[in-house]
């Protein structure tokens, strides 16, 4: 064992000791896998809880597929681990990608995620939750979950999904393409809602699973349709559009769909035309819409994520959804498409 491995091993041991003093345990079924969160005190669990609150809870005394130990230095009174990480700019992240050991960190605010794939154990450690990056609360542990699900042959996709009793429509595209707006309009119209930005997909069964119960809308879109979602916070960045986020899965629990079989793949695009239209797209455009943004969420395992993206899309002939005026017609369009694809 070299110095680096020893340092990380010691960090795992110390974290388990800390968590054992006042353990707060939550075991959830996420993407068809049993994931256990063990928090040293309530702070970290309270922080990540709202985004995962809609997911099925499992017994805490049965084996788990992945165990995530988490703590924050501020409330535990433990110094933040000193791993002599390279200095990076505030809010930037560093990354270590070893075959079975993945680590990412922010320098300021200090946040560290470690996954040891040999034993399916992970750490999520913050200096203080008050200063965590604004996107962590609506979609916590994104990199960690992406890494781990990739190893299980499942894709943590940068995608939204909505469903009927027949099956689901996967909405793919880069930020600003209309995924969130489409998914929330469909939810408001009574369709099942699986997520607005990230979902888990098992390409072997074509099953899409809900992940985060949060949604993010560009402030301008949210102001136009304020009833779609109650705002819990705003993600601000000097160079990007502000986004409001909320937890529609908490607000509208009866609309949540936990899993469904994918029947259709949709590429939304905001056209601001006179109406909304559905038209055939191509497999290459679907891959362009899904793979790059999904790959760079996890930032490692690029080839694997590219391959999984291809596998997820392979069975489908994708559609382009042109979002113009009359978005209230979209839920019916997608419901009919899901029904038609379900028959084919």
């Amino acid at each position, binding site marked *: 064992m070299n110095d680096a491995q020893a340092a990380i091993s010691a960090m795992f041991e110390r974290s388990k000791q800390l968590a054992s003093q006042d353990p707060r345990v939550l075991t959830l079924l996420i993407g068809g896998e049993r994931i256990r969160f063990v928090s040293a005190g309530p702070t970290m669990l309270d922080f990540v809880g709202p985004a995962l609150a809609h997911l099925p809870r499992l017994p805490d005394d049965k084996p788990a597929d992945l165990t995530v130990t988490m703590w924050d230095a501020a409330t535990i009174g433990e110094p933040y681990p000193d791993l002599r990480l*390279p200095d990076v700019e505030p809010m930037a992240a560093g990354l270590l990608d070893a075959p079975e050991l993945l680590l990412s960190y922010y320098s300021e605010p200090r946040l560290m995620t470690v996954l040891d794939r040999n034993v399916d154990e992970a750490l999520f450690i913050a200096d203080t939750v008050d200063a965590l990056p604004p996107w962590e609360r609506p979609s916590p542990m994104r990199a960690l979950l992406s890494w781990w699900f990739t190893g299980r042959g499942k894709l943590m996709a940068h995608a939204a999904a909505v469903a009927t009793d027949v099956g689901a429509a996967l909405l793919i595209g880069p930020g600003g393409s209309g995924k969130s707006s489409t998914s929330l309009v469909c939810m408001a119209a009574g369709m099942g809602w699986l997520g607005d930005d990230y979902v888990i997909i098992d390409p072997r069964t074509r099953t899409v699973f809900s992940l985060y119960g949060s949604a993010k809308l560009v402030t301008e879109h949210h102001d136009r349709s304020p009833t779609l979602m109650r705002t819990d916070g705003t993600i601000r960045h000097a160079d990007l559009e502000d986004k409001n986020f909320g937890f529609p899965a908490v607000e509208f629990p009866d609309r949540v769909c936990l899993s469904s079989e994918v029947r259709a793949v949709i590429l939304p695009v905001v056209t601001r035309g006179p109406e909304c239209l559905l038209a055939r797209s191509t*497999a*290459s455009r679907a891959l362009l819409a899904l793979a790059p943004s999904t790959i760079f969420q996890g930032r490692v395992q690029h080839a694997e994520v590219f391959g999984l993206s291809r596998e997820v899309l392979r069975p489908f002939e994708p559609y382009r959804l042109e979002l113009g005026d009359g978005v209230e017609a979209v839920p019916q369009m997608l419901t009919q498409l899901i029904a038609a694809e379900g028959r084919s």
Partner: protein
Amino acid sequence: MGVTPRTLSTRPRNDEPSLRNPTVKTTEPLPNYISSMWLIDQRTMQSEVLDGEAVIVDFTTGRYHAAAGVAATVWEAMKQGQEINEIMLQVRSAHTDVPEDAESSVLAFIDSVVDAGLAKQADPEIGQTSSSEQQTSTAPTPWIVPVLESHNDLADLMLIDPVHDVTARGWPDVPSADS
């Protein structure tokens, strides 16, 4: 369990044009590519041709690209290490109505691929083996001037969540017990 630092940089090079919107890049004059072949580091990117269009994702820059029709044919031939003459044979067998001066368009496309950092010209003195693998036989499609469509919209994501290089000394730089 080996711990090998991985160095990734997502910062765009200073000399690169903005690719915020899809662009078609041509440059004059063209380099002399006679008897040239190109090296594509397939460890740092992934590509696949679907419906006659190549999807190319560059892991080192975060940029992604599309190359349709003739451009996809040329890209696949470049991946196989083919020289320009072989590439033109591929183009003429896979497409109809190929103009006599098609080579200049193909070279312009290759130039845009090289300029995007997806390939570099191989040293002709170093023996390269071309697989000269013929593409899957499909019905020829009409000639369309090959272009590389490039996207950089994930720069937004990188602004939020950039990946920085670890130090040259590797990571973690843990002090020894006696230091």
